[in-house]
C-alpha cells in the first residue's frame, strides 16, 4: 500500500478526513433573494438579511434544498426527511450576524459512500454527512496598511459541507476523492466545482499512527483551495507529525494554515480561544421537512452518473476501463465523446479524444471549453480517415491545423491538397521514380536484403509528402520488387 511513511522507529500510516465546502449552484442565496453571481462590485449583492439588519427574517430557498438532496442521492446517502438549522456562534468581521446558520445534530443528508480509484485500485470512501449552511463574507487584508476591507456579496450564499470519514490513507487518495466528488456534483449540476472562484474549498484533517494502532491526534488544515495544495499540505503535515512523534513530542490538536508559497503548514494561533460555537436551534427557522415522495421524484430525474457511464462505455462500447475513466471524469468531456462517437467507431473516437485532443489541450494549457475543435468537426476528420480520403498520419497534421485555426477538416484537406493518393497509376509513377534512383539498393534487396523494403516504402511516402496510401504502396512495391 502506498502513502506509508518510513520513520526512524517504524512505519507510519497517514489518516485523512476531508470537509469539503461546496457552493450550491443557485441564482439566489440560501435565505435571501440576493444574487450569487461571481465577480460583482462590492456589497451590491447584499440584502438586509445578509447584512444582518435587526428584525430581518431568513426564508429558505427551496432550490438549494433540492440541490442538497440531489447531491445526497448522488453519493447513495440517507436523506433525512426532517433536519434542523442551528446557529453556530462566533465573532468575525465578515460574519455580520455573529453566527452562521448551519446544521449540527440533524443534517439534511446522512451517511453515504463514494468510490475512488487510487494507487491500490478501487476503494470506497465513507461520507459522514452533508449539511446546508451559509457562507461568510470576504475579507481583504492587503488593500490598506491598517484596515481590512469587507465585501458581503458572498455572505449568505448556500454551501454544502460534505464531511468524509477518516478513510483516506494518502494524499493521492484525498485528491482522487475530491476529483470524484467534484465530478459527481458537476454531473448533477449541484456545484460547479470551480476552485479558483472558491466554489469548492477544503478543510483537511490529518493524523498519523503506527499500523494497527488507535487513531492519532489530528490537526485540521483550513481552507485549502486547490487539489494540488491539498496534496502538498497532507504530505507536509504528515511528515511534520511523524518527526514530532519520533522525537517523543506529542501533537497538539489544532487548526493550521497552509502557506502555498512555502508548501508548509503553520499554527493558527488566535482561533483556538474562540472555538466554542454554542450551537442552538435557530429560533427564526422551523425544522426543514419534506416527503419521501419529493425525494423519489428527484431521484427519478437524476442524470447518468460517472460510475454508470463508465460501466456503459466499457460494456457497450468495448473501451478499456482506463480510457472510460478518463472520458467520464469531466461531464463536459463525456458529453463531447458521446457526441463524437455517435455513429462512429467507438475506440477510434476514444483514441482521438484521449491521445490527440487531450495531448494538444495539455500542451497549450487550455481546457476543452476553449478548444477550437468541436465534436462535430473532429467527427468529420475521423470520417475522412474512415473513408480513406486521408491517412491516419496526415490526419494528425490536419488536426494540428484545426486545433490552431479552428478550420474544418474538409476545408484544410482540400486547401492543402492533402487527400491520400490512392490512384495506383499515380503511385506506380512514384514507385518507379524511387526505384530508378536507387538501383544499387534494388539489387541488394533482390540478393536477399529484405530489410530494405521499409526503406523503399519510406522513400515513396516522402516523395508523396506523406499522402500516398500506405497500404497500396506496400502492395504495389511488393509486385514491382518481386516481379
Amino acid at each position, binding site marked *: 500500500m502506498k502513502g506509508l511513511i518510513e520513520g526512524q522507529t517504524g512505519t507510519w500510516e497517514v489518516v485523512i478526513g476531508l470537509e469539503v465546502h461546496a457552493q450550491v449552484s443557485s441564482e439566489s442565496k440560501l435565505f435571501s433573494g440576493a444574487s450569487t453571481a461571481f465577480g460583482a462590485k462590492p456589497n451590491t449583492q447584499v440584502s438586509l438579511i445578509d447584512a444582518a439588519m435587526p428584525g430581518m427574517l431568513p426564508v429558505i430557498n427551496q432550490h438549494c434544498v433540492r440541490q442538497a438532496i440531489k447531491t445526497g442521492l448522488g453519493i447513495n446517502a440517507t436523506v433525512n426527511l426532517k433536519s434542523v438549522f442551528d446557529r453556530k456562534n462566533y465573532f468575525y468581521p465578515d460574519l455580520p450576524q*455573529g453566527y452562521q446558520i448551519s446544521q449540527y445534530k440533524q443534517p439534511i443528508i446522512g451517511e453515504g459512500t463514494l468510490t475512488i480509484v487510487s494507487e491500490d485500485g478501487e476503494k470506497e470512501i465513507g461520507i459522514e454527512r452533508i449539511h446546508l449552511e451559509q457562507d461568510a463574507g470576504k475579507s481583504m487584508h492587503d488593500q490598506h496598511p491598517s484596515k481590512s476591507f469587507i465585501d*458581503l456579496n458572498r455572505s449568505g450564499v448556500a454551501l454544502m459541507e460534505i464531511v468524509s470519514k477518516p478513510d483516506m490513507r494518502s494524499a493521492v487518495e484525498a485528491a482522487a476523492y475530491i476529483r470524484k466528488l467534484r465530478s459527481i456534483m458537476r454531473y448533477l449540476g449541484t456545484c460547479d466545482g470551480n476552485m479558483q472562484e472558491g466554489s469548492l474549498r477544503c478543510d483537511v484533517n490529518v493524523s498519523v499512527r503506527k499500523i494497527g494502532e488507535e487513531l492519532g491526534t489530528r490537526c485540521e488544515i483550513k481552507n485549502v483551495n486547490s487539489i494540488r495544495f491539498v496534496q502538498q499540505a497532507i504530505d507536509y503535515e504528515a511528515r511534520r507529525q511523524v518527526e514530532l512523534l519520533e522525537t517523543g513530542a506529542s501533537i497538539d490538536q489544532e487548526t493550521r494554515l497552509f502557506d502555498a508559497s512555502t508548501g508548509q503548514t503553520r499554527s493558527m494561533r488566535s482561533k483556538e480561544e474562540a472555538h466554542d460555537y454554542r450551537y442552538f436551534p435557530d429560533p427564526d427557522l*422551523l425544522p426543514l421537512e419534506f416527503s419521501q415522495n419529493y425525494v423519489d421524484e428527484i431521484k427519478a430525474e437524476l442524470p447518468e452518473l460517472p460510475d454508470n457511464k463508465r460501466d456503459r462505455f466499457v460494456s457497450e462500447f468495448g473501451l478499456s476501463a482506463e480510457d472510460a475513466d478518463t472520458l467520464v471524469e469531466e461531464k463536459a468531456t463525456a458529453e463531447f465523446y458521446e457526441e463524437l462517437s455517435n455513429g462512429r467507431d467507438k475506440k477510434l473516437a476514444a483514441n482521438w479524444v484521449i491521445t490527440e485532443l487531450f495531448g494538444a489541450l495539455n500542451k497549450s494549457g487550455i481546457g476543452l471549453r476553449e478548444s477550437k475543435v468541436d465534436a462535430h468537426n473532429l467527427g468529420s476528420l475521423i470520417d475522412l480517415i474512415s473513408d480513406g480520403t486521408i491517412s491516419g498520419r496526415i490526419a494528425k497534421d490536419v488536426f494540428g491545423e484545426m486545433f490552431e485555426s479552428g478550420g474544418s477538416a474538409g476545408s484544410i484537406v482540400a486547401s492543402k491538397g492533402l487527400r491520400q493518393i490512392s490512384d495506383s497509376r499515380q503511385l506506380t509513377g512514384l514507385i518507379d521514380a524511387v526505384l530508378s534512383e536507387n538501383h544499387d539498393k534494388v539489387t541488394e534487396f533482390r540478393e536477399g536484403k529484405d530489410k530494405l523494403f521499409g526503406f523503399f516504402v519510406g522513400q515513396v511516402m516522402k516523395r508523396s509528402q506523406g499522402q500516398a496510401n500506405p497500404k497500396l504502396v506496400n502492395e504495389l512495391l511488393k509486385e514491382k520488387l518481386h516481379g
Partner: protein
Amino acid sequence: MSLDKTMVQRVSQLARIEIEETQLETTARELNNILEWIEQLNEVDTEGVEPMASVTGHELPKRDDDVTDGGYPEKVLKNAPDRESDFFAVPKVVE
C-alpha cells in the same frame, strides 16, 4: 448549573459584551437566578417526547430561487462606522 465569575467573564467575551470587573459578581448572581428559574423545567419528565419547534403547526415557508433583492450598497453601508469606497472597513485582522 451555577455560573462563577470566570464563566461570566468568558461568556461576556464570547458575546463581545463588556462587563466591568466590579459588575461580575452581581451579573453572576442575576444569571444564576435566571438559570435556576428555568431549571424548574427539568422537573418535568420529557423522556421520549420530541422537542417542539413551534406551537402553530406551520411548516417552514420556502421561496423560489429568484433574485429579488440586493443592488443597494448605499443602504447596506449606511450604518458602517467606517468604509473605503464600497467596502466596510474594519481594524486589520490578519491571520
